[in-house]
């Protein structure tokens, strides 16, 4: 099994992605380098691949780097993040750090001092990846709370998980109050203990804090453990919506891995709507796909040229291939500069479409 760490580079500049890929492939730990040219694709990759480190540009169309970092912090708090930007503005640096990025580098600095940059990345990759809280790695929050209560201490635990901040008030070994995500008391406590990673710090005790939690901490921890267990082993089957979302994410991830721009699946006329990923103008292109295949088949029969393998086309921005698979026709769009065996790569994408 491949145990290499995975680094995902997100930048809308294709040349820069190539440069970074070459540079990072030479890191001593030989990480696997994934690339994405927009935030949507990057998120799809993070959802499907165990990405350890995200290197993100700031200035990008649609979802910019800061928005992307905010999403990542909320949804993947354990992911290490590095901003690599061309924007030499102190405000961006401070906003990035406020979003919890691990490193902020300017692209010019990175090119000038690539060795130091590589060392920093190695250091980030080398840090422990097990879930836990920084300061006491491999310990869950439940363990930390139990330790505080058993030692009969009085303290305020301030817990940070990305942009989320929570507080637990412990007085003489008893949990008296909790506050998180706008909730207070037991409800807040349940939310906090569901966090699998983050950072915590001990603040001075606040003995005058109003008591909202009456249950013993062990009872609360037991209830939390039960609800966490139910959450990880849901009884209800997945909804159709989430299955469809997962399918979409898997397709997008596959598309990004292969380096294609879009795929359009066109069923025979009158047998359903075309499905697409990576393109908006579906109907017109679907019509052309059907028509292209029809014309090509008719011409092939007339000339006695054998079975149709595929139709390829090229415009200024894309290379497109029309391939049939099952009863559907597929149009796969590749960047104009894409090279390699595109028919083979397209067939691979098409074969995985409904799997």
């Amino acid at each position, binding site marked *: 099994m491949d145990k290499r760490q995975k680094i995902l580079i997100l930048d809308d500049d294709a040349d820069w992605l190539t440069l970074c890929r070459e540079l990072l492939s030479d890191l001593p730990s030989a990480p696997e380098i994934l690339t994405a040219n927009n935030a949507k694709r990057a998120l799809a990759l993070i959802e499907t691949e165990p990405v350890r480190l995200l290197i993100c540009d700031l200035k990008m169309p649609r979802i910019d780097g800061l928005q992307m970092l905010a999403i990542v912090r909320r949804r993947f708090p354990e992911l290490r993040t590095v901003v690599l930007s061309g924007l030499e503005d102190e405000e961006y640096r401070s906003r990035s750090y406020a979003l919890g990025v691990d490193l902020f580098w300017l692209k010019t600095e990175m090119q000038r001092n690539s060795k130091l940059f590589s060392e920093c990345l190695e250091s980030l990759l080398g840090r422990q990846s097990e879930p836990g809280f920084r300061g006491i790695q491999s310990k869950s929050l439940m363990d930390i709370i139990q330790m505080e209560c058993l030692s009969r201490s009085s303290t305020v635990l301030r817990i940070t998980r990305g942009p989320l901040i929570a507080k637990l008030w412990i007085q003489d070994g008893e949990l008296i109050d909790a506050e998180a995500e706008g909730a207070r008391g037991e409800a807040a406590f349940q939310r906090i203990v569901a966090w699998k990673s983050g950072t915590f710090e001990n603040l001075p005790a606040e003995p005058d804090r109003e008591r909202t939690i009456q249950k013993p901490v062990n009872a609360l921890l037991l209830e939390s453990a039960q609800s966490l267990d139910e959450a990880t082993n849901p009884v209800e089957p997945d909804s159709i919506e989430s299955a469809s979302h997962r399918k979409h994410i898997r397709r997008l991830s596959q598309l990004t891995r292969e380096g294609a721009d879009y795929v359009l699946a066109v069923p025979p006329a009158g047998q359903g709507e075309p499905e697409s990923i990576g393109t908006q103008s579906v109907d017109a292109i679907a019509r052309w796909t059907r028509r292209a295949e029809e014309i*090509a088949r008719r011409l092939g029969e007339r*000339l006695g040229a054998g079975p149709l393998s595929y139709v390829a*086309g090229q415009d200024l921005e894309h290379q497109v291939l029309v391939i049939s698979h099952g009863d559907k026709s597929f149009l796969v769009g590749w960047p104009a500069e894409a090279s390699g065996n595109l028919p083979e790569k397209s067939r691979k994408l098409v074969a995985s479409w409904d799997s």
Partner: protein
Amino acid sequence: MGFLKNIFSLFRRRADVQQLPTGTVTVDRHGHIVTSTVSSAYPNSLLQTIGRDVLELFREARGAEMPLAEVSLHFGSLRITARELRGGAIIFLFPQTALLPTPTIPRL
């Protein structure tokens, strides 16, 4: 005897084997052949069919806001590559054989 000759002549008729076209054809925007290096033994009507179909592919692509500069049809034994030429097209016809490598055209 004459009757038998007529009968047997029916069976002796050779299968209608059509050679695949090889060469280059240019067609104008109406699908008329302007120049051709394809053997004159190859039916002109089939060349015109190729020209018309290729122009239709370009035209429909433009209609789908995907203005193709080149289109290529890959069959088991023939490859047809066409480049758009001011509404017309230059069409390259390459029969595919197992022994000969597929010729390549420089990228646009």
